[in-house]
């Protein structure tokens, strides 16, 4: 069974410090939802508030429509996978998985049967008798997942569970997590500072900064249509040009920057005279293009096989990044060369500074 999770104007304060400010959102049942943000942005606090370790200073947390105020972590229909995994070192793998059933008073045989079933689900069927210390990082990861699923939660909360893993394994586990979620069909709420994880796994993402939710949307919309400067800068690489709106047209705005005047989309409808930042993705910036053009000197060329990163210094001293893909790779300029750069106005976005 699955449940939706609603936050209504949730604020969490520690003394004078506000960790989460006025967060409102609804996570649908069966959704894979991620909170993405830099460390200290309040995403872990939100997770701990949902799981019941923190009571909100104001606002309401509802799970399956039920207000959770006053309901302790051990009474909520959620299960949390900790960043450190928090596997019990004094128990075997199977005992770990069965722990939630043990405290619910299930019989030993029922417990062991369920543990076996879940260990099979995470492909650890033959490891039940081992001590936790004997497992590899990825295996521990799976034990943590199995342990959390054993209590049949309606919502599974995951606090950066992949951060301790090796890069290669992490990518592998992403697919596996997603597959497990599809199989069990419950709500997954995932916390991460790694945008790659958030983008590949999630149905929707909430980008957080300094205790506030900046934007909620699916991966594509967060990447291609950021609504704040923070989101534009945090999710993916971006070139930022600061300036002032000079004029506006139908859905477009011209921004006057030290490098010149550039046209970009104006989703928020900024008016002339407003301070603004124009964002262009490195892959949208083209060398030799004449539209929206400026000049810059190449300072760095990093060849990565299918991609080439080109670093440039613009005339006002700011750094620009261009990503060349596929056939373009051959056209990378030599270091020190002065080149013209341009972009399609539809690929640029004008936002107010953060």
């Amino acid at each position, binding site marked *: 069974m699955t449940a939706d999770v609603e936050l209504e104007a949730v604020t969490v304060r520690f003394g004078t410090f506000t960790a989460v400010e006025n967060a409102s959102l609804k996570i649908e049942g069966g959704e894979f939802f991620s909170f993405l943000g830099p460390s200290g942005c309040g995403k872990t606090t939100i997770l701990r508030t949902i*799981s*019941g*370790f923190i009571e909100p200073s104001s606002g309401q947390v509802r799970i399956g429509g039920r207000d959770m105020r006053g309901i*302790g*972590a*051990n*009474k909520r229909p*959620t*299960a*949390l996978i*900790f*960043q*450190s995994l*928090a*596997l*019990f*070192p*004094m128990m075997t793998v199977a005992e770990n998985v069965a*722990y*939630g059933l*043990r*405290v*619910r008073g299930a019989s030993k045989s029922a417990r062991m049967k369920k543990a076996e079933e879940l260990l099979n689900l995470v492909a650890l069927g033959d490891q039940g008798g*081992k*001590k936790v*210390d*004997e*497992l*590899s*990082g*990825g*295996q521990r990861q799976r034990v943590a997942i199995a*342990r*959390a699923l*054993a*209590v049949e939660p309606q919502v599974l909360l995951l606090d950066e569970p992949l951060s301790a893993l*090796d890069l*290669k*394994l992490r990518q*592998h586990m992403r697919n596996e997590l997603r597959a497990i979620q599809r199989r069990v069909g419950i709500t997954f709420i995932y916390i991460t500072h790694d945008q790659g994880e958030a983008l590949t796994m999630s149905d929707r993402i909430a980008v957080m900064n300094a205790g506030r939710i900046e934007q909620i949307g699916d991966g594509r919309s967060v990447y291609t249509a950021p609504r704040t400067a923070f989101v534009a800068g945090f999710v993916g690489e971006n070139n930022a040009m600061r300036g002032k709106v000079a004029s506006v047209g139908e859905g477009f705005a011209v921004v006057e920057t030290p490098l010149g005047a550039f046209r970009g989309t104006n989703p928020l409808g900024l008016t002339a005279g407003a301070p603004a930042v124009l964002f262009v993705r490195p892959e949208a910036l083209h060398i030799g293009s004449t539209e929206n053009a400026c000049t810059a000197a190449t300072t760095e060329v990093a060849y990565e096989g299918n991609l080439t990163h080109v670093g440039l210094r613009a005339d006002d001293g700011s750094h620009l990044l261009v990503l060349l893909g596929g056939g373009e790779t051959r056209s990378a300029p030599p270091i020190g060369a002065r080149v013209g750069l341009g972009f399609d106005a539809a690929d640029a976005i004008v936002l107010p500074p953060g």
Partner: protein
Amino acid sequence: MNSRMINRIMVGFYLVVFFAYLFGPLVIMSITAFNTSPYPAVMPFEGFTLEWFRILFADKDMMIGLQNSLRIGVLVVLISVPCGLAGAILMHQVLPRLRNYYYIVVVSPVLTPGVIIGISTVIFWKDFTAATGASFLYDGLILASLGQSSFISAYCMLIFLSRLQRFDHALEEAGLDLGASNAQVFRHILIPYLRPAILSASVMAFLSSFENYNTTTFAILADKTLTTVLAGRVRQGSTPAISALAVTIIAVTVAGTIVYELIKRREDARKAATMRRAQDAERLEMAAA
């Protein structure tokens, strides 16, 4: 001869002198336990005998003292380990602003001379038991146990604190999150985690109690323990029977140390094997990924 060799010789010489100072007196005393001479003497070695051990074990006072020492030791373990455990757990829960004062109070017995702890224990309990009518508590064995527990609890607390420092509090939260009550988390997770510390604290508490003299001599009232009987005997005069007691204690200690070392070695080997298995699993996984 180069300077490195001189250095090594000096270190070796120093180690020999240090351990000679440490063990010399004990070895010499031990030898006197087997000499027929009525005074504890090494030379002349008049003849080998075990007579002094027979006299020792026939000494009724000593044996009564030994029994009392064992009783007190057990009582001290039963008092100190729970108190030290509670003291250590509360340390993390006391308000940060008050933690310092709390720490000063519970750690002060470690820095208080044992005689003073003995004295204050007797004074307080004499008054307190008289005032409350619980005069059965004014008993040498109980008072000695309470006095010793005062500082042995603090030792235990320090042992628990150092183990708790490495405790991942997420384990407790994980237990709660899986639906356990606080009491279940305490029983299933915290106590098993602390089990090695509980074991070593118990052994430490018992041994500290068994060998204690300063606090006991005040708090024991009219009763006697092995150490107080021993102190009386030693003041009356030297006899090789005392050396025989020392030999017995040393033998037990050495045996205990060897057993402990063997257990520890086995455990280390097990731990190393576990770690190897984890590394193997890690390698396999990387190969598969």
